[in-house]
């Protein structure tokens, strides 16, 4: 190896940090700026809250009267509330990649990629900041569901658990979106794919009806759909009567596994945006 720099050249400062320290700092650096931007311009957060309101107030109220969905001892509105929360998390997260493509077109991604920051840290920082975007939706749906008379659990532990799941789900689907962005690279193509993906993911899940009423093939797809586990976990934590199908721990585990897998894939693909 040839001699890199003049002695005393301060450019090799990165060496002074430990590996894990550098990871943490880089993840924090990315998440920090993303959250600052979000708080500076919260219009996006406000528009995000509109969709779950419509689903709960219109769809929920109507189906609460007419539908014969077999939801066990739970009333339909209570059954629906976690589904609507998970769905709004999915719909908002799935377009996260658009912002990343915009950053690529501007040159912000290139600026990040020429830095010595770990690629995985860049992706994780993005994912974590995206996770926090879900908090607003969680607050809106919880409050609205309570207002509409759904059977919501308000014990602090359950609330925190629900919030944790929403953050994890939001981070997972945003990372999925980031992967699509790395793959398609243009906004036009992304919009098409985003639309094509969200509806099947939504309907092939337990968000608005239980898996038990699905035909066998759809039930099979739902088992591999991360949204199913987000909905299921939220159903256990949000409403009374232990309405989830799987244990909450299992839902967390499946989502964590999906998140890890997607982060690994995104880390591999993210540098493609620098081309």
């Amino acid at each position, binding site marked *: *190896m040839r001699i*890199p*720099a003049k002695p005393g050249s301060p450019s090799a*400062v*990165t060496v002074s940090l430990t590996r894990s320290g550098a990871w943490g700092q880089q993840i924090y650096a990315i998440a920090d700026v993303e959250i600052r931007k979000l708080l500076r311009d919260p219009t996006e957060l406000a528009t995000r809250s509109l969709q779950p309101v419509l689903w709960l107030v219109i769809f929920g109220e109507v189906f609460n009267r007419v539908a014969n969905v077999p939801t066990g001892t739970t009333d339909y509105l209570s059954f629906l509330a976690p589904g609507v929360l998970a769905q709004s998390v999915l719909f908002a997260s799935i377009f996260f990649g658009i912002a990343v493509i915009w950053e690529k077109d501007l040159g912000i991604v*290139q*600026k990040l990629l020429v830095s010595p920051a770990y690629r995985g840290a860049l992706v994780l920082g993005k994912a974590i900041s995206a996770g926090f975007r879900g908090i607003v939706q969680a607050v809106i749906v919880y409050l609205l569901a309570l207002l509409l008379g759904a059977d919501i659990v308000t014990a602090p532990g359950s609330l925190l658990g629900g919030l944790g799941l929403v953050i994890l789900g939001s981070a997972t689907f945003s990372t999925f979106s980031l992967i699509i962005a790395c793959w398609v690279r243009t906004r036009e193509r992304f919009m098409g794919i985003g639309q094509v993906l969200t509806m099947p993911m939504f309907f092939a899940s337990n968000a608005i009806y239980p898996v038990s009423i699905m035909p066998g093939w759809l039930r099979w797809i739902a088992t591999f759909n991360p949204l199913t586990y987000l909905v299921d976990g939220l159903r256990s934590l949000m409403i009374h009567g232990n309405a989830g199908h799987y244990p909450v721990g299992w839902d967390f585990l499946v989502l964590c596994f999906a998140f890890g897998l997607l982060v690994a894939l995104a880390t591999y693909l993210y540098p493609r945006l620098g*081309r």
Partner: protein
Amino acid sequence: MKQPDVVKPEFGIPASDLRAHAAAPAEQGATSTDWVVETDGLTCRFGDLVAVDHLTIRVRRGTSFGLLGPNGAGKSTTMKMLATLFPPTEGSAHVAGFDITTHAQRVREHIGYVPQTLSADGNLTGAENLLLSARLYGIPRAERGSRVREALEFMGLADFANGLVRSYSGGMIRRLELAQAMLHRPVLLFLDEPTIGLDPVARRVVWDRLNQLRDSYGTTVLLTTHDMDEADHLCQEVAIMHLGRIAAQGTPTALKDSVGPGATLDDVFSHFSGGGVLRGERYEDTRQTRIAVSRHR
């Protein structure tokens, strides 16, 4: 594709010298530190298109080196490969003494790169943009504040540190991007079209800052431009690229003399580039250039 026969090897470095050099890096010892960039047969293909064709250049420490050429000549692609944004299809290069393919991470610690497009985040303040860079480059917490202040002052942005970048003028954004790229005091700065879309006054300020950066910090600069005036103001050495190859290389004065008495760099440019290329520039590149220009205005 045949290399144009207008090459003037006496201004550049004969390719044979470089190959011998690259073949025996171990023997180079201290002299290799004179060269901050050394490429050997650097090549990039996009499908059938050869964007960069066996490029061999060297950039001396502490100097500004200009890659000139018409759109699509392969300047930006060369720069992106050297800045480790993607690996070369063929050939190799050393930047700051490290191989760009096998030691990309080490290269990144020693370089700053300002893309042609707008890389400062408009929704953050100037100081926040710099803080992000400081953290990503691992500048110790104790030094961060003073480094950020120093960079802002150097680029004449201290009074605007807490203003959102979206309220900056094009010239201020460019200087902020330069501040970001110099924050970790890189050995080498890559500047892709540093004054594209700027008005003459703003451009002059950027030139002054860049010359001062080289003089105060000894920063080596590799820049691309198709503005001959810019090359004349900034560069000690220029290489004119045409169809992915070096058509001519030397000091601006030597190149002008080679074309004829009273020649300007514009004359040199059209002499060696044949007035432009018919293919090469991709739609995507054009789009990015247009975005960059419109955002900087």
